[in-house]
């Protein structure tokens, strides 16, 4: 081999083609298996419940997952760097009551949106700075901000729902573009931008680099700290956006808004195949992860399955998905 060969290696004989096909099948299953799971689940629920595949129900599922989906994009960035952000649910809560209070005080909706988004991004940045400068592991750092910010949400609202404002932006939560709910459109755009950032920009490469091998990334002259600060900022920003969507949907600011969402979001991202240790994952598959979460709860509600049982199923799905990821990685290491 004197020159670099960019085509497939030609020495592969016909004999090897069989095993290669099997390898390909395994790779496809490993990579896109999650989409098959989504299809299979949908078919199952479709068979068991006639309304499952109705346009209305499908749009309903999409609307239900929109908030989790928007946040999942930010979480994908964070997890790809090897971090985690537990504070997303609390940022949703603060964003929700802050925006409601601002509008109640007569602030124009557009200005309130800008301020809420800026504040949420700032919370994210603080997460990043804590991780970077205080050397606190992300899990602990964001556990702290999660608790503190939930407190902030309650302080701002006095513990009560904030309503009675005129929200000229309620279409953000309740409107439609053609027949598609606006939250779904926002989620789709968020995923599109997230995909573009990860796939087509320098920044995206660095995100994968930091998660894959932080030291090698640093030794390549890349500012690891700024990349980390940025991913937490993105996560905070998108949590704020999700908070605004949630507020607009119910026309009231809830201090409890977004509580427990961090778990749904992390579950969706991990089911979407993003490695919890960072560096590997495809945001396109995170869409599938988000949809699986939505299909599961919607389907189980349609089938009238007890809510408690739903929790059990979701938990099992999470462990199953991560277990699958780990085992297949171990296998890859061995071969």
């Amino acid at each position, binding site marked *: *081999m*004197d020159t670099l060969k*960019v085509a497939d290696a030609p020495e592969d004989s016909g004999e090897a083609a069989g095993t290669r096909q099997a390898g390909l099948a395994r790779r496809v299953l490993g990579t896109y298996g999650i989409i098959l799971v989504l299809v299979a689940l949908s078919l199952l629920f479709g068979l068991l419940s006639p309304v499952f595949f109705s346009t209305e129900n499908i749009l309903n599922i999409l609307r239900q997952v929109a908030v989790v989906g928007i946040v999942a994009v930010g979480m994908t960035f964070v997890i790809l760097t090897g971090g985690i952000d537990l504070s997303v649910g609390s940022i949703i809560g603060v964003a929700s009551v802050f925006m409601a209070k601002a509008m109640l005080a007569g602030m124009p909706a557009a200005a309130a949106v800008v301020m809420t988004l800026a504040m949420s991004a700032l919370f994210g940045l603080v997460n990043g700075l804590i991780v970077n400068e205080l050397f606190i592991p992300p899990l602990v750092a964001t556990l702290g901000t999660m608790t503190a910010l939930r407190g902030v949400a309650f302080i701002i609202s006095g513990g009560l729902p904030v309503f009675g404002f005129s929200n000229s932006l309620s279409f953000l939560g309740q409107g439609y573009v053609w027949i598609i709910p606006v939250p779904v459109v926002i989620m789709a755009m968020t995923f599109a931008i997230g995909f573009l950032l990860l796939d087509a*920009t320098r920044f995206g490469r660095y995100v*994968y680099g930091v998660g*894959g091998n932080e*030291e090698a990334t640093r*030794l390549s*002259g890349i500012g690891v700290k700024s990349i980390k600060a940025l991913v937490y900022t993105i996560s905070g920003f998108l949590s704020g956006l999700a908070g605004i969507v949630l507020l607009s949907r119910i026309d009231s600011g809830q201090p409890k808004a977004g509580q427990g969402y961090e778990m749904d979001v992390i579950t969706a991202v991990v089911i979407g195949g993003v490695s919890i240790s960072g560096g*590997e994952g495809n945001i396109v598959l995170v869409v599938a992860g988000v949809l699986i979460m939505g299909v599961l709860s919607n389907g189980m509600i349609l089938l009238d399955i007890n809510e408690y049982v739903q929790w059990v199923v979701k938990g099992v799905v999470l462990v199953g998905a991560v277990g699958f990821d780990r085992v297949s990685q171990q296998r890859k290491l061995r071969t």
Partner: protein
Amino acid sequence: MLELRGITKAYPGVQALDNVSLTFNRGEVHAIAGENGAGKSTLIKVLSGAIRPDAGSVALDGKELGHINPHDAIRLGISTIYQEFNLVPFLSVAENIFFGLEPRRFGLLDKKRMHRMASRLCEEMGVDLDTHARVKDLGVAYQQIVEILKAVSRDARILIMDEPTAPLTTREIDVLFGIVERVRRKAVTIIYISHRLEEIFRICDRVSVLRDGRRVMTTETKATNQQELVSFMVGRKLDDVYPARDSRPGAELLRIQDLRNGKLRGVSFALREREILGIGGLVGAGRTELARAVFGADAFVCGLMCLAGKELRIRKPRDAIRWGIGLLPEDRKQHGLLLSMSVKQNISFPILKALSLCGLLRRQREHRLCLDLSRRLNVKTPSLDQRAKNLSGGNQQKVVLAKWLGTHSGILIFDEPTRGIDVGAKQEIYNLLNQFVAEGKSIIMISSEMPELMGMSDRILVMRNGVVAGTLEKGDFSQEKILMLASGIEARSGDS
């Protein structure tokens, strides 16, 4: 009592152990000496059951052991104290000594008895140690002693110590040797690995020298001296062929003045244009730390760097890269590569800025550039999209090299350029090194392989304990001189 019979072990490209037979007697302190890479660590690993030899066997009291794992080894009374200790930092001294074999009463830990037993052991070994102290609060020396006590408490019959004095001060070494003496009196065989020849003469009864995986001599320490040991250690054949190079170093390019940090104690040297400056020294002499400090990977507290007469301020790798310095780390997988990313993504990683427009990657350009660089270095990969982890060691090294060619580095720092690379690919790396010098680049090459160091360098700088022990010009290269400088023995001519 412990006997090695024809132990052979090969790694890709290296014959680590070649038919080594050796007998250790009961109650002796037996030193194993040899250069870096002579096979000492492999020998320890075989004895402790960490690796399985390709051929040969180990016999204990005349009985062949067959294949053993580390657990079996400990059960058989073979304890190894590695440079990295196996202690639980948050547990007490006593708890660590009896870890896994705690005395119990009614199924619960009998802490009282455990501490009593530990105290008795300390007394017996002449150690003044609070058995309640947490191991993490002890200094390195006492942690090591805890390891020894642990081994003794398990009725170790053979105690293997790998460079035990490396992290210790002179006074601590005295304490350690006192304990070693007491352990020996319990008829325990001690296999002692050390670079420090004077220690071998201080506490060892016999010494064996390994060279290129073969045992070249075993003798009573009384019957030999340091000079003779060195001459046995270095009688290494220069069987690798190093490509000839027209070496004409130019003016001084990079000057390093009094570089200091935790590991460096004032290093000064100069690198000339079109020069390969070899850096030799024993493991732990501060060579990697020097490379990392020059590259900005580790901070240095004081010191000065000048490039072509201009002072450089290098605080992070990015600064070094901007000045055209590239580092090819010793541990490619940990520090050099993004293993799960593609060859292309690895090569372009440091120069994505130049390859993008407003943050968006220009993939055509990226592909062309990476293709060009990988062709120049003859990287063997089925495609540029192959993940880096699937390449061989030699090709991985070329990918790291391609990275720094992409940044137009004028100074390349190689830390063990051919470690883990098979013979054929080594030759290619050597040719590339020469080609770079011919193109006007300068190279700093850290190497533990004597032949490589002497075959490739224009000058050799030998480090010892974080300082430059000496510099050798091309005409003066000899393995003995390098080893003498590295281990701090004065070369005395006419004295035997």
